């Protein structure tokens, strides 16, 4: 459970406990505790149990329904929703700290006749449901209203259930604690609650503190999921061992950042991996040791358009005559023994005879190569062990574009694009289909209403995007890099005609 979820649960619980000061809260303790002489201790225990179950059910119903409403309204879970939840929590925290009157107030109570006309366990269960529902009787803290707003804003059924169960447990606890021992502990506590208003005041202060903590947790969550600008007019990030490199767009060189120093490289292509940095100028690729700057190998590669390097391999992409792309791989330990300028041992690893697939920028981690291949029939992300030549399709999709892979050990970062959205996703190579979304953007395509003007919308539902889909954008998720907790992605605004492309690199927490 995350810190935010734990604080959310605690806040809901405290809000439920505060409800014990309501007329209904007092009545419940008296109703169940005072019945012991008439119906016996076992009956009271059974009634406390049904009351607790009812309160949990009521809480779950209310707050899960509110979360479902938030989800249906759309935008739930977005940055805007998180801002709304934070503002609501902060406002309620301030109100609780100042002890302001709870508005709006619900001046209603649970039906009194039930305790006389129904069997006590049944009446207790129904009372529990009503109190757990939260908004059927007096509200003693602003936290209840705030939690309702937060449930809608977050729009997560799981969060709604968490709030509901926490609130229900809070409503049940005082009754379950006091009623079975009403003659001793129960009456004493009831008296203290009734005659010492400071107790309620302190509890509301605690509610306020928890709401403030919740707001801070939301802020921390928001900043953790937010993108951070790393470089402008830049593309093709690569990262390894704390170093970071990227290319300036328009062939304006490349930049290598390592150990606090910034190096300008006169290269059109750059990639780092392991202890090496590889650069390309359109005619040849040179691999250097990042620490010493010593040249390891220079390979003639006149049509190279992308690079990847690791401690063991250099891989580059080149245009394939007749369409599509090719990937070439050169083992670096062998290359060191070769005279500079020789590319004799490079071998074709993708884009062979008969293949017209478009290949994305390759990614390397040790011997493992990842690349995305797209044809009209579908796209796939392929893993190839360059040492053993074992090839594996990690992900495959027919109507979805899987692109721009990056590797870090056994983790795979990639972009999944549909007609509704673009998502930067992170997965383990052991279970690549169970990917987590790090960043989501809307589609770059223009969609129509799904029905012709003047016609009904009925029947257009199957092509619609799900609620909560990000708005369409002009930016495309482009090349990626991954190292530790940092995932990098290029946000590309494609060029057209004479207008050049614009691009910047952002970092997202992985």
């Amino acid at each position: 459970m995350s810190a935010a979820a734990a604080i959310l649960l605690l806040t809901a619980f405290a809000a439920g406990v505060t409800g014990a000061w309501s007329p209904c809260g007092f009545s419940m303790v008296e109703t169940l505790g005072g019945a012991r002489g008439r119906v016996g201790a076992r009956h009271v225990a059974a009634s406390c149990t049904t009351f607790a179950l009812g309160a949990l059910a009521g809480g779950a119903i209310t707050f899960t329904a509110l979360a479902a409403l938030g989800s249906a309204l759309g935008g739930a879970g977005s940055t805007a929703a998180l801002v709304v939840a934070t503002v609501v929590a902060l406002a309620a925290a301030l109100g609780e700290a100042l002890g302001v009157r709870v508005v709006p107030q619900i001046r209603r109570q649970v039906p009194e006749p039930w305790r006389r006309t129904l069997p006590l366990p049944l009446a207790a269960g129904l009372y529990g449901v009503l109190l757990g529902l939260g908004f059927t009787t007096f509200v003693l803290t602003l936290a209840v209203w705030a939690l309702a707003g937060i449930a809608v804003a977050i729009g997560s059924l799981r969060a709604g259930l968490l709030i509901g169960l926490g609130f229900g447990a809070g409503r049940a606890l005082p009754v379950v604690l006091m009623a079975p021992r009403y003659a001793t502990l129960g009456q004493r506590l009831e008296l203290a609650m009734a005659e010492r208003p400071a107790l309620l005041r302190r509890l509301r202060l605690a509610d306020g503190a928890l709401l403030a903590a919740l707001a801070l947790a939301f802020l921390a969550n928001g900043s953790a999921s937010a993108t951070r600008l790393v470089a402008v007019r830049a593309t093709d990030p690569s990262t390894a061992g704390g170093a970071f490199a990227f290319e300036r767009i328009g062939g304006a060189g490349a930049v290598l950042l390592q150990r606090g120093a910034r190096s300008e490289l006169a290269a059109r292509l750059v990639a780092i991996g392991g202890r090496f940095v590889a650069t390309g100028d359109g005619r040849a690729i040179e691999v250097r040791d990042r620490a010493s700057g010593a040249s390891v190998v220079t390979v003639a590669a006149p049509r190279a358009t992308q690079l990847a390097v690791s401690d063991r391999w250099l891989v580059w992409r080149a245009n394939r005559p007749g369409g599509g792309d090719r990937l070439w791989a050169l083992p670096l330990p062998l290359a060191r023994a070769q005279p500079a300028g020789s590319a004799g041992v490079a071998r074709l690893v993708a884009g062979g005879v008969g293949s017209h697939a478009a290949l994305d920028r390759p990614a390397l981690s040790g011997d493992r190569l990842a690349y995305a291949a797209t044809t009209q029939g579908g796209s796939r992300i392929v893993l190839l062990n360059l040492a053993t030549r074992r090839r594996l399709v990690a992900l495959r999709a027919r109507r979805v574009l899987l692109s721009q892979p990056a590797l870090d050990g056994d983790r795979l970062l990639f972009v999944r694009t549909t007609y509704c959205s673009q998502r930067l996703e992170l997965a383990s190579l052991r279970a690549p289909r169970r990917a987590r979304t790090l960043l989501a953007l809307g589609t770059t395509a223009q969609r129509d209403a799904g029905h012709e003007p003047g016609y009904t919308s009925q029947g257009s539902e199957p092509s619609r995007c799900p609620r909560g889909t990000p708005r369409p954008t002009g930016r495309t998720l482009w090349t990626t890099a991954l190292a530790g907790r940092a995932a990098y992605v290029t946000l590309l605004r494609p060029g057209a005609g004479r207008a050049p492309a614009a691009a910047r690199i952002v970092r997202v927490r992985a």
Partner: protein
Amino acid sequence: MPEQRRRLSDALAGGTSRRGFLGRAGSWLLATAAGTAALQAGIEDAEAHHYCGHTYTTGSCPHPTGIPRVDLHGYPLRARDGHPVDDLGRPIDRAGHPLDAHGRRLTDPDGRPLPPAPRSRVCQDGVPDRYGFHTQIDGSWYRCCGGKVRRLMDCCAYHQTRINGDAALTGYCYAGRRVFCVMYFQTSVPC
């Protein structure tokens, strides 16, 4: 006549999931009431659906831009102007490269055209990929829409429910297949 009756009874039942009862009721009504001309008029004039020419309530086949316009082979086209689009909904050229609003190729930071994305046939590839069963186009019907002849196409399957979730209709499907979803091809023939 029996075929017309069957189609129109489907049409009458198409607005609801309780089509077993309504289908029979529609069939009975048709058998005992209006003549052929009236029946034909009933079909041709029914346009209270989500695109011109479509007379049933069956939903569109999932399409990358929304309105289910396709080319003769079933590949997706943008409804507004009939321009080919890929599975991401982007207008594309003959080689599959995405284009901007002025028909120019989109380029990456190195000036290379953006790579093509997959492009699937809406009924024959897209629906099986999403729903997991075989579909095909059996037959179609032509109507006049906006001054041009339009071909209404049903995506058929051996499936009892349609894409909306309720009972599937026979529509223009044969050999026991039923309409799962619908789409159209716009001809340039004036009418």
